């Protein structure tokens, strides 16, 4: 069931320069949300922001009936969101899309995130751990300033980080991480797979690695979209089934469904 309603802002945090963390709640209980699903936000008071803005769901705090959004400030619209205050309301269309593959008892899942793409992996880690799976996080960023919420991630699994400037963890991209290499040891392990969210070049590199090593891999795409409901057909991705809406059939796709040249 999808909803379009005004949610109440109960927390506004600035985890790092150029980001805002919004914590939203509702008088009614929030609907069931799959990790990897997203919301479409209506931004008020931003003349250059006509359409809603799709934002991935960072975390669902079931206990406190909260949904968290970790937003990178890239344009006038997102900057307006950073000016919101506790008590303000925000019109949200949610939950949208399919979300990541549900976890199964005992499986090992490597969650690879890059940039603000790490956001949805926190909730996915939570859901995986809840169903007895074993998530490991491999998070990459330009520098330590882009690696946010690490203490939150650590609650659900081991966290490995890479930074392009070497300010934290291994220097370079996630794909250079020794961890990824080691993961090949699991290759023959039926219960090992990779879920990935980040910039397209990074996801393609991870997908290529996974394909070569026959590791099941899913990626979360960020195509530009309008409606978020599969109606306008703007956010399509070419797949083996033809053009499909990322907002509805995705944003999460198994790399075997895609037509990426990898």
């Amino acid at each position, binding site marked *: 069931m999808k909803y*379009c309603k005004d949610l109440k802002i109960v927390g506004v945090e600035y985890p790092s320069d150029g980001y805002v963390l919004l914590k939203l709640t509702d008088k009614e209980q929030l609907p069931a949300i799959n990790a990897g699903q997203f919301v479409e936000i209506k931004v008020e008071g931003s*003349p250059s922001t006509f359409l809603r803005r799709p934002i991935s769901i960072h975390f669902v705090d079931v206990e406190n009936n909260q949904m968290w959004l970790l937003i990178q400030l890239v344009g006038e619209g997102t900057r307006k969101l950073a000016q919101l205050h506790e008590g303000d309301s925000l019109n949200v269309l949610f939950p949208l899309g399919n979300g990541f593959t549900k976890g199964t008892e005992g499986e090992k899942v490597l969650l690879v995130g890059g940039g603000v793409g790490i956001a949805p992996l926190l909730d996915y880690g939570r859901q995986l751990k809840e169903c007895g799976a074993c998530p490991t996080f491999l998070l990459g960023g330009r520098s330590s300033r882009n690696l946010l919420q690490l203490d939150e991630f650590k609650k659900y699994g081991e966290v490995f980080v890479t930074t392009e400037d070497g300010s934290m963890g291994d220097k370079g991209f996630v794909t250079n991480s020794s961890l990824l290499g080691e993961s090949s040891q699991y290759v023959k392990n039926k219960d090992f797979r990779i879920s990935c969210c980040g910039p397209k070049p990074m996801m393609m590199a991870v997908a290529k690695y996974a394909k070569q090593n026959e590791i099941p891999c899913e990626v979360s795409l960020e195509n*530009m979209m309008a409606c978020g409901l599969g*109606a306008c*057909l*703007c956010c399509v991705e070419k797949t083996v089934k033809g053009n499909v809406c990322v907002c509805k059939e995705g944003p999460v796709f198994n790399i075997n469904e895609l037509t990426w040249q990898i």
Partner: protein
Amino acid sequence: MADIKVNIAGLQMQNPVMTASGTFGYGIEFADLVDLSKIGGIIMKGTTLQPREGNDYPRMAETASGMLNCVGLQNKGVDYFCSHIYPQVKDIKTNMIVNVSGNSPETYAECAARINELDAIPAIELNISCPNVKQGGMAFGVTCEGASQVVRAVREVYKKTLIVKLSPNVTSIADIARAVEDSGADAVSLINTLMGMSIDIERRKSRLSIGTGGLSGPAVKPVAVRCVWQVAKAVGIPVIGLGGIMTAEDAIEFIMAGASAIEIGTANFIDPAISVKVADGINQWLDRHGCSSLADIRGVI
């Protein structure tokens, strides 16, 4: 409450608000978010005789108070519509209308003939104004001859309410409307999108895969109101107005310009329940102003 029922050449609607083709899917995508039975009519996405993959991504660019799109009529074809989609929509309690497109008078007609067989589809909207396909689409909509050809071919085989959607990308939309009326259309809807372009100056290329696209949203509303006003004065058949309607007040502008009904397009992306809100708002506005029906304000300009 005022009476806002309308009858578009036999098409009975409980209110004058329809959802525009390509902005509301097949309706079912919005079922969680709005009571479909309270909408006057739902114009489903463009359907063609053969399946179409549409254009490559990117297909959309945001602009000042509007957006460009170049979807290009992606759809699985009329056979798939009849076998897979029709069964899902035929029981929705409102007017379910199919938007029909083609690349020749024959393909338009053949597709319309198939739809004519579907009992729960009381009308079609003929799209002779899509700016995003090379063959057909707007090519037919920008000349009186081309428009007449397509409408005559379809009129022969289609027996229910035939609405023809017009392009604003012409020197005289009134001339096209007259030609379409003379060729047997029961009603016209306008405006389809204005042809536009947006350039990503960092990448040094268009933001749209095929270069140009169709502009919609509040940005085009003044052009749409002008076109409706011109066409309503030029033809005797009902005019359905669309183009940037976001509120009941916007809708009333179109009705005062001469529209018998209106379509809501891009606004569905911003508020999925906007169509019913606009219908209610029109009713309240009429009550507030002591109008008993839409006839009191239609075409007063």
